[in-house]
């Protein structure tokens, strides 16, 4: 039972980070119908920038985090302006390939600058684990869960009440209608990419604190695909719920089934779920299926 709870807790924590990264993913899909396969590299870059600021420049963590978010926002704006804007109205495959190419470009850049070794963050949180009813929780886990929850609440409020948030939802809903109501669509796209980049960077910093940073971290960009498929590509609550479900299922599958097949199932398991969802409920739990006209 304790083992199960332990798996559950680590699943929830990893799931909360999935939810965060998936949020950035869904944002971009909603606004511009693009599948951002470079998301994993955004996570990686955010994590490395913050790490460099903390270790090499000895900045306090919070300052470093703020600078990282600023840099990532600029990166997001640049990506939108240089790569995505010329491809507005391009076919799906072009946009997918553009983000894949972007991912390769960023990954190459990261490898050139930071190399391949795993690097670790200095201890920001105390080491001694906290116990909740027999389950050990390291403070890093607890803190990242709290931070993610806070961010998710902030974003929910932002989308529901702020003027920009409403504009973004309008653009996602119907681009032409939004444009004709006087919303600056280009600006909304730019801000969407900036926010997605920021969210990915936060995910990267938290993951880096848990596992250390190395190039394989960008895999999370692919792991959140099952999350958004489960939740529905165009649903923000779906991304959050899907993140937790996939995180928990993955953790439990890793704990119980991995010893049976000799490891490696943990990474693949979400993709088995994807096939199941796509067969029975292609638009996910909360997604809107579209009607098609000729």
């Amino acid at each position, binding site marked *: 039972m304790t083992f199960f709870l332990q798996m559950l807790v680590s699943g929830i924590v990893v799931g909360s980070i999935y939810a965060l990264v998936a949020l950035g993913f869904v944002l971009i899909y909603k606004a511009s119908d693009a599948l951002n396969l470079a998301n994993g590299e955004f996570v990686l870059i955010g994590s490395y920038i913050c790490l460099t600021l903390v270790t090499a420049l000895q900045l306090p963590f919070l300052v470093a985090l703020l600078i990282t978010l600023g840099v990532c926002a600029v990166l997001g704006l640049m990506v939108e302006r240089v790569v995505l804007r010329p491809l507005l109205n391009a076919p799906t495959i072009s946009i997918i390939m553009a983000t894949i190419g972007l991912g390769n470009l960023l990954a190459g850049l990261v490898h050139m600058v930071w190399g391949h070794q795993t690097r670790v963050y200095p201890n920001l949180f105390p080491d001694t684990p906290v116990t909740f009813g027999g389950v050990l929780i390291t403070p890093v886990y607890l803190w990242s869960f709290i931070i993610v929850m806070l961010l998710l609440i902030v974003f929910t409020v932002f989308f529901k009440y702020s003027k920009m948030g409403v504009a973004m939802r309008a653009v996602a809903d119907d681009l032409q209608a939004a444009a004709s109501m006087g919303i600056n669509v280009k600006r909304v796209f730019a801000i969407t990419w900036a926010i997605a980049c920021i969210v990915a960077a936060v995910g990267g910093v938290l993951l880096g604190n848990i596992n250390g940073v190395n190039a394989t971290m960008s895999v999370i960009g692919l792991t959140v695909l099952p999350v958004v498929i489960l939740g529905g590509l165009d649903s923000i609550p779906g991304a959050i719920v899907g993140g937790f479900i996939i995180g928990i299922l993955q953790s439990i599958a890793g704990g119980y089934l991995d010893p049976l097949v*000799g490891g490696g199932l943990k990474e693949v398991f979400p993709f088995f779920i994807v096939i199941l969802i796509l067969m029975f409920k292609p638009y996910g739990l909360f997604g809107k299926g579209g009607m098609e006209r000729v």
Partner: protein
Amino acid sequence: MKNPFVMECGNYKTRYDKDMAIFSTKRVKVRMLTLTLLAFLFPLLADSYIIGLATLCAIASIGAIGLNILTGFTGQISIGVGAFLGVGGYTSAILTSTLGWSFWIALPVAGIVTASVGALFGIPSLRLKGLYLAIATLAAQFIILFVISRWTGVTGGTSGMVLQRPSIGSFSLMSASSYYYLCLMILLFTIVYSLNIFRSRTGRAFLAVRDRDVAAQIMGINLFTYKVLSFAISSFFVGVAGALLAHYTMIVSPELYSITVSIQYLAMILVGGLGSILGAVLGAIFITLLPVGLGMFVDQFAVYMPDMQNTLAAFQELAFGAAIILFLIFEPGGLAHIWSNIKNYFKLWPFSY
């Protein structure tokens, strides 16, 4: 005889069979045959390293044409080519090394097995489109590779398997040029087959599905049949390419078929030109030679920048990504479009206005 390398300034077709012909004029026919002849003669002049590169280009072209049938002509995005190459390679490895079959039987069987696996993963394409299908094929990529690396009893797990070069009687195709000729023959077959399929009902149905599948269905095209058929035909060629590659490198192991390979093949058809056989071949050559060219470039400048060699892999990755983005933004039609632009320019040259 007229000079075959002088461009005709117009090609007016008066009959339907002329419009459907593979070679639109006699000059095109002569030009194509000359090109084929050159491809056959060039190993006599080149050294084995260059012939090896040409072999890799030929194999990649077969796979890229296969993928282009699916993605470029039928409009079904597949990010699982890497794993399908793996299925072809492993089938051939198991048949020849474990069961002792002849390569000449194992090669088509590898294609057929891959075609069946491809058709299986193509079934969801009836309900899924665009992004959703892309993700389904991505899932196929991960699941197939997982099965390959865990089914240790049959596939040898992560350590992989060793293969032999094929042989005709007692003559083994060990030399670079003999294997090149084999790949070139199969490439020619692939090109002729795929050019012909788009002159038939099946090919036209594929194009209709790509352009608007709902409209195609209303016009009486059975979507399920043609989508699955497209997956099967495409995977057949990918499987054959996988088997050829496996017998060329003489080793198969799971990491040779990762998602990176899938992305490379997608990049080939994109850089070459979606929906163009010529484009698939050009793109395959471009993407295969890009890292080689960059490596040579870095070697040249190693004197000035010694650090460059350590980061060569990263630099290649960066250039690969940049190439994809630049092509998408500045030349979405790909190399095939550039080529036809050049041809059009010379049609009326030197009075091209």
